[in-house]
Structures are given as C-alpha cells and as structure tokens.
C-alpha cells in the first residue's frame, strides 16, 4: 500500500487528524459527517417524546415526578367524560377538520399565483408584486388583528365609514363579532398573510424547469396558455404533491395564533380549533391534559401522513417516504 499522501494538498502540513480522516473508507466519512445531525435530531425530536410520560401523572411543575400520583389513562378519558363535554369536543373537531380541509382545497392558490407571477414579463413589476405579497408573512397575527380592527370596527372602521358615506348601509356592521362565514374569513386572512410566501417554493420549481421544453413548444407553435398547461403545471406537480402530503400530515395542527387573535364570544363556536381549545382549557395549569391531547394528535398525524403517502403510491406510483 502506498501512502495516500499525494491526496493531501502539498502546501498544507500533514496533520494527524486530517490524515487519518482522509484514510477512512467513504462510508465512515459520510456517517461521521451525518452524525452531528443525527444527534441533534435525536435530542430535539426523539428525546422530547420521553415527556409523554407526564400524560399519565397528575404532574405539576416544580414537584418531581417520583412524588406525583400515577393516574393511568385519566386524562385521556377526561377528553370525553360526559355528554356535554363530548359535544364540545365534537364541535371543536368539526372546526378543526373544516379549517384544514379548506386549507388543503385552497392550497392551489399559491400554485396559481406562482404561475401568474412567473408569466409577468416586466422584471421590476414582478419583483414588486412578489415583495408586496411576501411581506405580510412576517407580520404577527396580533398585528394582523390590530389591522383588521382598524378596517372593520363598527365605530370609525374604514370599511363601515365608507359604506355609510356611500349610503349602502345606515348602521355599522360588526364584521369581527359575528358567527357567520367565520371559516371563510379565516381562510381569507390566512391567504392574505401567506400567499406570497407559499408561492416561493413553486417559483423555485418553475425556475428549475428545463428552458428547452419551452423553446421546443415555441417551435411547435404552442400558445402561452398551452405552454403553462403542458409544461409549467406538470413541472411543479411533484412539488405540489410533496407539500400536499405534508399538509395532510398536519391536518389537525391548525396552530393557535390566528384563531387566538380573532376569537371572541360571538365567533368562538366556529373558530375554536383543537389547538386553541387545548390552549384555552389546559395550558394555564394542566400539563398532563395538554400532553395527553398532543400525544393523541401526534398519533393521528402519523396515521394521516402514512395514509396519504400510500394513497399517493397507489394513485401516482410515487411516494415521499
């Protein structure tokens, strides 16, 4: 065996560690390179699962688990302890499913938006629109609510003032405190905030499409719409499906922020999704209950993800896992 010193750059001294790393077979090198990330993944994603144990105890922060009474499945059962409570849970689940379903149905919006954006031929105008639509993503929901309040409050709200001045209505309409169309207004606010951001991935996918395809289509005399339909859309469908499958995995995780900011007594019946319900009921001082619910959520999410994945395998012949 010859010394592999020729591999080492001549101008640099041959350090011990460096040399020995070079001598390793590739599979170990790759493993060592991935190792730190495996460890971080383990620490941040698998280790916290040990916290599930709290769902089975009457845990209170500050008191060691060893001094805490073991209660078995009490907190899981308490989710449906009686009729009225069951109705509450069903109402909350209905909202959760509705919001997620609406979210998935409307997830074509950023796709359409990205295609339209990429078709804009004036670069400065395209950049302008993209920046303008991406910015709301960085505004917190509390501020979005403040904006909504200025626009839609009954007294001196911009919209009501205009409507009254134009003579469409005599008295202000309370847009924010109403139980009608809450799901639709919520999804509208959601896309107002995330449309530009959601389009970024698709824009990247569009850039990745081979330009020769378009040139070939030009030669064949394809119209602009034809090119979109037969080249751009098929080009970004894989990206769309990956995101779709992931969002199905997140079906029951709607998050808290948006609904927390917009909730009030009038719209609570329709706005209270599972995450908000857990926040409202449990988060103040009931960690075992919150843990129990999030455990169930994780299990359901995993189930949904794998279902969606195998559906994809069945229908499209490819899967992401």
């Amino acid at each position, binding site marked *: 065996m010859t010394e592999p010193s020729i591999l080492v750059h001549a101008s640099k001294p041959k350090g011990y560690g460096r040399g020995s790393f070079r001598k390793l077979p590739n599979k170990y090198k790759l493993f060592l390179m991935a190792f730190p990330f495996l460890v971080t993944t383990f*620490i941040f994603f698998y280790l916290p699962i040990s916290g599930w144990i709290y769902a089975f105890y*009457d845990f209170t922060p*500050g008191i060691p688990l060893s001094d805490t009474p073991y209660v078995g499945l009490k907190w899981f059962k308490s989710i449906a302890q009686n009729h*009225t409570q069951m109705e509450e849970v069903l109402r909350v689940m209905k909202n959760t499913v509705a919001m997620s379903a609406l979210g998935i149905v409307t997830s074509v919006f950023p796709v359409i938006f990205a295609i339209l954006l990429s078709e804009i031929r004036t670069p400065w105008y395209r950049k302008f629109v993209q920046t303008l639509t991406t910015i709301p993503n960085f505004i917190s929901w509390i501020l979005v609510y403040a904006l909504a309040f200025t626009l839609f409050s009954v*007294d001196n709200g911009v919209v009501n003032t205009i409507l009254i001045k134009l003579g469409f209505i005599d008295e202000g309409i*309370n847009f924010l405190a109403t139980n009608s169309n809450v799901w639709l207004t919520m999804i509208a606010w959601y896309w107002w905030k995330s449309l530009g951001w959601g389009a970024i991935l698709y824009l990247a996918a569009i850039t990745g499409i081979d330009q020769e395809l378009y040139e070939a289509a030009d030669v064949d005399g394809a119209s602009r719409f034809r090119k979109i339909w037969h080249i751009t859309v098929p080009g970004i469908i894989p990206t769309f499906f990956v995101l779709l499958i992931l969002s199905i995995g997140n079906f029951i995780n709607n998050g808290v922020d948006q609904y927390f900011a917009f909730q009030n007594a009038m719209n609570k019946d329709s706005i209270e999704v599972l995450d908000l319900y857990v926040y409202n009921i449990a988060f103040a001082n009931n960690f075992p209950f919150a843990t129990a619910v999030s455990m169930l959520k994780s299990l359901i999410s995993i189930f949904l993800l794998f279902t969606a994945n195998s559906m994809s395998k069945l229908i499209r012949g490819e899967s992401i896992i």
Partner: protein
Amino acid sequence: MRLKRTLILMLAIMIVVVMAACSKGNNGAKESAPSTESTASDSSPSASDNPSDSASESPSSTGLDHSQTLKLSVFSTTANYAGPQIGWFAKAIKDKFNIELDIVSSNLTGGDTKIAAMMASGNLGDIVIWGDDKNNYPNAIKGGLLLDLTKDGLLDDYGKDIMATYPKAIEKAKIAFGGGSSVYGIGNNVASNPSGPSEGKDMTWGPDLRWDLYQKVGSPDINSPTDYLPVLKKMQELEPKNSQGKKTYAFSLWSDWDGNYKMTLAKQFANMYGYDEIVDTALYTKADEEKYYDFLSEESWYMKSLKLYFDANQMGLLDPDSLTQKFDDVVAKYKDGRLLFSWFPWLGAANYNTPENIAAGKGFATVPFKEEVMYSTGFNVYGGNGIISIGAKAKDPKRIMEFINWMYTPEGAMLSAGSGTAVPNGPKGLTWDLDAGGKPFVTDFGLKAYADQQNTKLPEEFGGGDYYYGANQMNFSFVVPAEVNPQTGEPYDHNLWESSIKRNPNAIESSWREKYDALTAKDYFVKNNKIAVAPQGFTGKEPLVMDKTLEQKNKLIGTVIQQYSWKLVYAKNEEQYNKLKQEMLDKVKGLGYDEVMAFSIKKAEELFEARKSVK
C-alpha cells in the same frame, strides 16, 4: 484501530452532551419552553458574590458585611419590567445595602409557561415574588424550591422588624404553608391594626360620571345602578360627539381581561353592593356578613349587570366595538373624551382629568347611588395573598433577609410603600420631606413627579432616570400604604397626608365636596356608613384547593360563562336574551356546575371562619 478510537471518542463526547442536556431540561422544557429559557434561568439566578458571612467587618445594626456588591436575581410573577433595577430605588438600596437587583418577569416572557419552566428547572433565583398563594407557591414549597426562613435564625436575627411589627403574618405563613413551624414566604400589604377600610384617597370602585355633564342635566338623584341609564342617555344627548366629532358612549367594555370565570366588567356593581367573588368559584360573598349568592342566580348582580348592559345596548349607550377591542383602545377612548361612565377612579379620572380638561371645567368624579354599600378590603394583619420568598439556592440569605426586613420598616415603607398599586413616595429630601413639626409634605418637585411619572427626570445624586422606572419594579407592596407610620403619625401614602388633602382643590373637586359634604370619595362612604369592610382573617388551617379534575371542569364552565355573557349583552331582543340565558344555564349544568357549587360553598364557609379570627 484509529478509526475505532475516533468513533469511540466522538460517541463519548456526544453522550456527555446529550446527558448534560437531559439532566438540565428534560422535565421542564418539553412542553413549549425553548431550551434557551432554562439555560438563562440557570445562569442568572444565585448571588454572584459570596462575601464571608462570619466576621463583621463593617458596623451595621445586623453586623453583616456589606463591602461586596450583592447582585440578586428577583423572579417576579407580577413585575411588568425586566432587567436591572434602575433609578432612585436602585440608588437607595445600593447605598444602604450594596445590593443590586436584576428582575426576571414572567409576565413579559410567556406568563404561566415561564413560571412552569422556572419551577421545573429547580432554581427560582434569589428573591421570588408570587402574585397569589394558590397553586404555584405551595407547589414550589413541596418541590423544595424555597428557603425556610426559620432556618439558621434567619428571621430571628435578620427579620427582627417583621417579627415584632407583623407577628400575625409569620403565624399565617407557618400554619397555612409551613406545616406549623417553617416560614417560606411573607404576605404583601401587611398591616399592624385590623380595623377600618385600607384604601387610599379613592375607593377601588366608583362609579364615576363625567361630572360637568352630570351637573348640566341637573344632577338627578340615583337610587340603583339601573337609574344611571336614563341619566347617561341625557348626558349623551347633551354631548353626542366629542371634540373630534366622534360618537360618545356611556359604556365601553373590553374582553382581554376576561378570565377567572367571568366577563371582567360584569362584577363591579356587585362590588358596589358590598359583595365580591371568591376567585375561581361560583359564589359572591358579602364583605361583612355571612351571606352569599350563586352568581348565575336571579338576585346576582353579575346577571343583573349583563341585563343592564343589554338595556344600555338597546338604548345606544354601549360601544358596539366592546367585544372586539382591547383595553388600550378603551383607555384611548377615555382620553379622547368619548365615554361618560367609569367603574373605577383609576380608569376615567386617571385618563381624562388632565390639567387642560380640568381647566376647562371637565372631568370625572364619583357619583354614588343611594343603595350603594362599597366593598372595602380591611387592613390585613396576616398579609395579603401576594408572597415574597427567598429561593432555596440563594447564596447569601442573611443579607437578603436583612433587605426584605428593611422594606417592612417605616424607612423602607416611606420610600416605596404601595409599589405596583399606588404611586410610591420616593426619596426623602427630593419628592417629600418633613416639616418643622415632623409632619410629611410633598415638595413641588414631588407634585410634578407624581403627576407625570414618566416625564419627570431625577437629578443624578438621586439615581437619575425618570420617576416611573426608578420605582421599585418588583411589583410587590410590602406594607399597606394606608398603614400609619408610627414615626410621623400619618399614613405612608402621600395622598393621605393632611398637607396633601388640604392642598388647593380645583373647580370639580370644590363642587363635588360641596354636593357630598366630604373631602374625598373614601371620606363620603365612611361618613355615610355606606361601606362594607371585609375583615381579612385566616382560618388557621391549610387552604382548601380544588383537585385537578374539578379544576378542569371549572375552567371549562368558566369559558362557557364568559362566552355567553357577551352573547347576552349583545342579544338582539328580550326573547333572544332569555333563550341564550337558558342555554347557558343548561350547558354549565351539563359540565358539572353543581360540583363546582358544592366546592364554592365550602370555600365560602372557610372564608367566614377566617373572618372570625380578626373580630
């Protein structure tokens, strides 16, 4: 071989890292607290220096050495400020004790979640301030996170003034939370004498009206809260729009303070009838009698208040944005002169009675109703429910105890009594002083500082900065401000000094004093015997607490009540109102209201028993 060694070495390092991460944060950080929080709490608490505590090098009353600066981390669940204490209070304690405070505020960093993370980390810092004595405080004792102040003679040697002046507070701490012998914390707003109302110049509630408009409509007599509605309607007709042309309303509510079972703004009239809730239960109890009612019953002023707001809404007196706006929006409306009624002196008068408005003859003043019997918190010899503790891992407990003790002495109280609830007096010789007869008076600089706390700059020799942020930011009131200072014979609170009360009244104050024949609102209620003082006693037993299952039901019921309360107020008509009310009653019953009620009654009995202890 080399490969194996490298691998083993790397694995070993990783395992060490993982183990370190586990042992620090695995029980607390799992739920939602980011890991940075637990590490931050690990590094900041604990005294930085540990001077030798045996020999006394510098002479002082306790014989402790103050030559080394002691940096204390204060974990306060009530503070609305985070970071090092600055300004005049910092200067005063630095000069006196060579102590610096660094305040960690859970309010500003995640609320209950932050408290849970701190508790789970096992170190709460050097000084801990609890907003109430439920849940967290007893749990911290059980978890061994707090120092027993009777150990090593801490209280006996360095807490002498507390032991001598407020022995009952120590007694309560021992019996209620210390298993009969240990002291893990001392209550707030302590008093040495148990009789009479403990409020300052104003009471907690009013109601206050726009005094100028009330006079213009002929100051009609008001017997009960419902009588305010026609009067307010007339006042609104007199001034339908404010100076900027925006609509005026009588009531403007806000929902972001809702919690503890109720719509926050539907309980004030109950207070004005001498009743108050027992927090987190379904009962309202009378301040000075063994009477209570279910707060969802017909006789309850919670339900009557909802009806009153419903009527007000029908009359166009209720701000239509009440449900969706936040507290800050309401404050802005008071400032703009768009509201005519205020439940509290600290809301209407505090925001509207600016020098300009007063000069124009406009302002809020208390307009009591005939049936009113104001609920008043009596002086509490056992201390309130707020608690100050020393952390179990505090490095120099003796100097901390000495400092806390001083805050309960006349010297400490004159400096900062009432911090968090009232404007503190500030440094002697700057904002106030003693006259030749030894009586306290507010200086001209003091008048300016108290009126405009944020914009008044202090001279460098008193610590600099503005008056507001220079105040004690722990947000803990050690001694009740209305307590009489044995050294001057007058209360600690500068608003109650004779020299302050007799200072030139403005036009509104003069006409008010003339009509009610009293100097202040408190004076009026006391003189006319329209006050119900709740004795602040203690049962001599551990307090009753809900078990976790009932707590959960209670919480759920509370959210239902809050939601329906708002729906009732904004119901379209009487018919819908009654239908919603029935729906609410059915729903809470289904969720276990009867169980909560049974617990509430036990809690009321406990309260009545406690009151006997101070009679």
